């Protein structure tokens, strides 16, 4: 029995390919329901970062991305999707919080953590880098200062 299960898992793992973004409904800051499988960037890389307003390292991470965002877009055409996991306790905080901080990255709400679960994320922050086909090529859990440099290197490798 055990070997069958293992075999199945290995087979399935070998099939890892193509669109890695599951189909989950999140909300845009203007209230529209958006399916995450429509996240696309014309064949250019994408960054998906899960965060929350109450999470210090998450905010630091997105502050850092925002500082470099204009440069990254110029050099690699990347698009960042910041998915807030704030629940109905703090989700109405997200829009004014983001605007006051001057973030220019698109932000979505995942109020009941459906997208977080679908991406198998245990704790925020958790960041995924996807290639132009929507395949996850790199990921990172937690954030410390300087992590954006590793992400930038991976981004450059991808854009070569």
């Amino acid at each position, binding site marked *: *029995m055990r070997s*069958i*299960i293992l075999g*199945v*898992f290995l087979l*399935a*793992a070998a*099939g*890892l*390919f*193509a669109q*890695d973004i*599951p*189909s989950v409904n999140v909300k845009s800051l*203007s*209230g*529209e*329901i958006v399916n995450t499988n429509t996240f696309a960037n014309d064949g250019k890389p994408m960054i998906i970062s899960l965060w929350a*307003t*109450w*999470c*210090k*390292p998450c905010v630091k991470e997105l502050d850092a991305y925002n500082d470099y965002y204009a440069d990254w877009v110029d050099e690699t055409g990347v698009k960042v999707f910041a998915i807030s996991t704030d*629940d*109905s*306790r703090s989700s*109405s*905080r997200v*829009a*004014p*919080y*983001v*605007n*006051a*901080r*001057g973030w220019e990255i698109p932000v979505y709400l995942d109020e*009941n*953590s*459906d997208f977080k*679960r*679908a*991406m*198998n*994320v*245990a*704790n925020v*922050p*958790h960041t995924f880098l996807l290639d132009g086909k929507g395949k996850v090529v*790199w*990921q*990172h*859990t*937690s*954030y*410390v*200062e*300087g*992590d954006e*440099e*590793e992400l930038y290197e991976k981004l450059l490798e991808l854009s070569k």
Partner: protein
Amino acid sequence: MKIISFIAVILCVPLMLSAQKDERPVGRLTGNFNLEAWYYFKDSVIGTEVPPEKTLMNSYANFRYDYGQFTAGIRYEGYLNTLQGFDRANDGAGIPYRYLNYKNDQVEFTVGNFYDQFGNGLILRAWEDKNIDYDNAFEGVQVKFNPANGVYLKGLYGKQRTYFELGEGIVRGIDGEINLNELFDTLSVSKSRIVLGGSFVSKFQKDENIQYNLPENVAAFAGRLSFQHGLFLLKGEYAHKINDPSADNNLIFKDGDALLVNASWSIGSFGGILGAKWVDNMSFRSDYRAVDKNLQINYLPSITQNHAYSLIAMYPYATQLTGEAGVQGELFYRLKRKTPLGGKYGTLISVGYSRINDIERKTEGLANDTLGYETDFLSVSDQLLYDDFNVKIERKFSRKFKAILMGQYLSYNKKYIEGKGGMVYAKAGVLDLSYKIKPRHTLKLEQQILVTEQDRGDWYSAMIEYTVSPHWFFSVMNQYNYGNSDKNMRVNYYTLSMGYNKSGNRIQLNFGKQREGVVCVGGVCRQVPSAYGAYLTLTSTF
């Protein structure tokens, strides 16, 4: 074992199909693994005990398989035995969460376990957070239907999870949401956006109470509206629950009500929120006998701020399900960069205030009445439960140096909320400095102080953290309860930690004493119980 073979077959079939036809979608298996294991030490001063097992462990792993429009998933959970601070009812191991799902552009079906939320959750929210030992997943069926652009309908039947069992009550619910701008083409480009929604939930539990004639079916309904114009947003939801005698309300037959209103707006670098909430007798569970976190059908979001610094979050507030009236406001303002006040990189200022009082209950002439009490809608009593005023300033001084300064004034009605002690009045402050020594090497010094005449008295906390991106972190933290009126209790709660990160994997080792509360170390925040020992955490996403 039956479940595992079932899942294996489900995984096998599409794989075999995909092997035959190249145009079939390709299957994808993903998941995660999490483990936290403690080895305990005894500390008679702070009252930690070594369990007979010496070491305890909580773990879980998710496996998710996507194949075109199908998804299947399981979560294995093992509590061998349950960590201190989590409910021992978790003890054991098994697969309490498994589901099969089909989804296309119009419909979605889930059978097995699922989570869901109607509106803000006032009458229904199934969710999980392993860090706070919460999981009220449904087991049953769920259908979502999208008949027209902007129209979203969903319905469910299910029993709720309680540890490795299911509660005996059955929950039925429907929810509908209409986005007027998506539904009507003429409104699609309007700057004003309107979303309307409504939901109905009913629970059934057989009445086996000998003493009382309890209602077997209890209904609740809610309506909501969201209006947005540019960067201004106004959201409101009202919920009503029919008579629902339970352990929470001492078996009274009174109806319940809840109202939640939130407004937010942004103008330039200015942002603000205002919120108000009123709750009366709105605990709603699928078993009338359940207490604590168990078998809750709904979620009443707290409208107090969720603080990340441990001493600022020393006295956190949780919604009083039986009744409360609260308001909240928060302002964010960014002083522009390259201005005299804003400095070279800009400065952020946030000011927050929240206050919760009890509601006014009238019991005159109702001593033997099954309604228990009467209350006027939106009544507020003089009884203060919680208030929090705080100011936070964040400033980046150079590419290398950043600082956060925060101050808080707090009142916490410990007697009402925890059933012991009295009113606690505290002042707290934070100075959080971070300095980049060289590229990727950062040193952080976080100091906090909390001053109070009540409860456990004054605290001082310091943390030094050294991080080397992208892999390593090391930290030393100490929280000193220097102002405790009992000199023997002037304890140092120290923790040494180190961790290593690589791609989706993280390993962390810690040693020390933990005071209960929210702890953020090396980039991850979580809720922890008080304990003394050495522990290991592993997290992996694959």
